[in-house]
């Protein structure tokens, strides 16, 4: 299950890279695993997008999916 992980803004600063490959069954598992690896994420608010759509509940992941971690937006 190779998932492409994209990060932005402050999250990239914590993780140290903006693009990587990870393994996870679903979005909750991925989030838990990332927080374990990067405790700095715990205090951050962020949304998760799977294949460019923001999800609001745990979502199953399959090979080739792109998951993005989105800190609060500040465009405009």
């Amino acid at each position, binding site marked *: 299950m190779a998932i492409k992980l994209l990060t932005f803004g402050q999250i990239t600063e914590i993780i140290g890279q903006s693009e990587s490959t990870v393994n996870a069954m679903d979005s909750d598992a991925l989030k838990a695993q990332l927080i374990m690896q990067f405790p700095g994420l715990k205090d951050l608010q962020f949304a998760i997008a799977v294949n460019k759509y923001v999800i609001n509940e745990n979502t199953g992941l399959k090979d080739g999916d792109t998951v993005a971690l989105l800190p609060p937006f500040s*465009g405009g």
Partner: protein
Amino acid sequence: MIEEKKVKKVFVNGPISPVFVGESIAKHSTKQDIGAHSIFLGQVRNDIIDGNAVLAIDYSAYNEMAEEKFHEIREDAFQKYSLTCMHIYHSLGRVEAGEIGLFVFTSSIHREDAMEACAYIVERIKEQAPVWGREVFDDGRHVWKQNNFKETQ
């Protein structure tokens, strides 16, 4: 693929120049059913945060998702309001204090549509576009901006 072609380019590198805004307005003189233009410009403020002044904002985005979101906002605005024209430009990269990073431009036959659509588009962008602004201070540090927005639609 055909879907992709309809996506209009929103992102520009660096600030949006006032001359470009003027040129965009001039292009509409041939569209003589337009009675009203509404324009919103977002300008970078030199806010003082903890005693340090903001020199610039460095914008980055999740480009692929943002372009789709801008397209969706555009389609929704055309659906909700009777518009003749609509243009959205957003900066990426560094925009100095006093420079412009967002340009929303709506045109309609009667003024209400252009004005309401412009406000609607600005709120949707602030709330939903995956764009981030890193405020760079005069002492070299930075903070990540966070938008305030009203819930739209």
